[in-house]
């Protein structure tokens, strides 16, 4: 069963760009890479999903190299409200694997 590895925590300041990398060396051909955000006492919330190359939406970008063994979530110009835990998730048929999560702390 493929696992993901992320940094346990990261610190940043308001207005900076934050890049969180997830390692998934054993990703399967059919797996998608999905990132979720979780605030305390709330359920995780979908941020972005991709299969390869680059995906961008209104809140983040996701960079996936050709070998797909890692991915990087990029949050442009973070604010205090971006303080949360970010999970990297492999989604494949009949398989859901959450990473350990990265606790991002954004300071003024």
């Amino acid at each position: 069963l493929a696992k993901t590895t992320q940094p346990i925590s990261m610190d940043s300041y308001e207005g900076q760009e934050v890049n969180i990398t997830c390692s998934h060396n054993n990703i399967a051909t059919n797996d998608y890479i999905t990132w979720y955000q979780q605030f305390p006492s709330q359920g995780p919330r979908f941020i972005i999903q991709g299969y390869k190359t680059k995906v961008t939406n209104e809140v983040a970008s996701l960079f996936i190299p050709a070998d797909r063994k890692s991915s990087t979530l990029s949050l442009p110009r973070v604010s205090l409200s971006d303080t949360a835990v970010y999970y990297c998730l492999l989604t494949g048929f009949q398989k859901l694997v959450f990473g350990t999560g990265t606790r991002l702390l954004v300071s003024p």
Partner: protein
Amino acid sequence: DTAVSQTPKYLVTQMGNDKSIKCEQNLGHDTMYWYKQDSKKFLKIMFSYNNKELIINETVPNRFSPKSPDKAHLNLHINSLELGDSAVYFCASSQVGQDRSYEQYFGPGTRLTVT
């Protein structure tokens, strides 16, 4: 309107009791899930139902039994509760796309405390 709702939000009970957590989604999704998040914040899939059929059943004690009366509901029944069952349980739903990509919508969670 709440997309995925769970009841109760908090549940405190004693060891050995049987309890149920209810989940409902009004998104018209065909797949629902139960997750367990322990005190260390590890989020683990427990079950997944697609169109009322069980498709994922992780290594979970058989004291845990999901019940899906219809596509919009997935309830979790727990027998003979143990201290280690204390956690936050999240329900989620999604619509599986033809390319297997899907976004999951999570409920607010049910904090279960077993004393």
